[in-house]
């Protein structure tokens, strides 16, 4: 059986974004539109570009009344996420002692990827997977009667998968982890890297929210498992530093996971 694939890798927002589009393929030009959208988001939101609206806002050169609707939406959502995660997701540097930094990228990348997926869907695509730097938007299925198989990278053994998930779109998967480079997520309250959790994966309907939740759970540690139970539609999988694995209780009910292949 031959099925048409449309595969494209775009380097944008400092990461590789992989598109794997199955039939029915979108109308001509839709992939270009989705890619153009991601570059447009990068130009407006990047903290690495001095002239982005976020950078200028962070330096106080422009006011909130000067930014466009997308930027205002993202900032408002980041504020909501800060409250929902009890401060664990912090795009504003609210708890930093030395000045504040504005960095909504922990939500922006997932949000932008969801909107790119919407562009493809609006052009007729139904079955595709977009992997944005390890965070994934799934729509439809890879083929009839099959689920997408998503591997979760092992936090300390790069050649291994910690587990695999079988998911049907619309769904999304975000993972926050330290991997072999060492701790890189800073606990906003303690102002030091978190150490309890090696990797936090969150699955749910919106990648921007899943990404923010994964960051928050990384910081919350094991108490985050109780917290995620109260977030409707979102499930989590944690790997601790001591290589124990934890699943939120709804995981089995709402998704199929392969319990046998956990390798930690």
């Amino acid at each position, binding site marked *: 059986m031959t099925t048409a694939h449309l595969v*494209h890798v775009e380097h944008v927002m400092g990461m590789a974004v992989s598109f794997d589009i199955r039939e029915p393929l979108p109308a001509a030009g839709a992939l270009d539109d989705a890619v153009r959208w991601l570059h447009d988001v990068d130009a407006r939101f990047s903290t690495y570009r001095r002239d982005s609206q976020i950078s200028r806002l962070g330096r106080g050169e422009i006011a909130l009344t000067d930014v466009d609707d997308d930027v205002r939406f993202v900032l408002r959502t980041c504020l909501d996420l800060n409250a929902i995660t009890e401060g664990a997701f912090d795009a504003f540097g609210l708890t930093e002692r030395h000045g504040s930094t504005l960095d909504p990228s922990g939500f922006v990348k997932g949000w932008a990827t969801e909107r790119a997926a919407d562009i493809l869907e609006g052009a007729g695509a139904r079955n595709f997977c977009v992997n944005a730097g390890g965070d994934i938007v799934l729509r439809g299925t890879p083929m009839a009667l099959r689920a997408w198989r998503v591997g979760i990278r092992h936090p300390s053994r790069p050649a291994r*998968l910690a587990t695999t998930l079988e998911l049907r779109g619309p769904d999304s998967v975000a993972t926050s982890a330290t991997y072999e480079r060492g701790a890189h997520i800073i606990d906003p309250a303690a102002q030091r890297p978190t150490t309890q959790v090696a990797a936090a994966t969150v699955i749910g309907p919106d990648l921007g929210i899943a990404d923010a939740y994964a960051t928050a759970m990384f910081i919350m540690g094991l108490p985050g498992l109780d917290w995620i139970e109260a977030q409707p539609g979102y499930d989590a999988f944690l790997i601790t530093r001591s290589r124990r694995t934890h699943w939120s209780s709804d995981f089995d009910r709402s998704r199929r996971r392969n319990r046998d292949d956990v390798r930690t």
Partner: protein
Amino acid sequence: MFADLNAARAGSQPIAGLPAPMPVGGTPPPTVAGGAGGASAVAPTRQPFDGPVIPTKYGPVQVQVQIANGAIADVAVIAHPDQDNKSRNINASALPQLRSEVLTAQSANVHSISGATYTSTAYLQSLQAAIDTAHGAGATTIA
């Protein structure tokens, strides 16, 4: 940009603007099956497919997969021929990891990998790069 990628997808054309890809270090990619590594060890049905050119701090680099019978038979990291020692270093460190990750993916048959692969250099060394290249080449056993 897309024209380059279409060329890569077709697998028959060198990437526009770059010389024909060569293995870093000037030797052909050895085979996974433990063959001698020379051209004579490559089965006639095996076809190389180049992934997209990835901009890294070491310069433009690509992942190349060898497809045989719809499956990845081998994977290599290839680079612009006139690159310096740095690219040889990245190749030496990336290749064994990439190979073992491909074997993992073949056995797990996954479509995509979740986990932090934020930089383009990290992507190059990642399983996701091999999966994308294999999909672009029409491989069937990786998903």
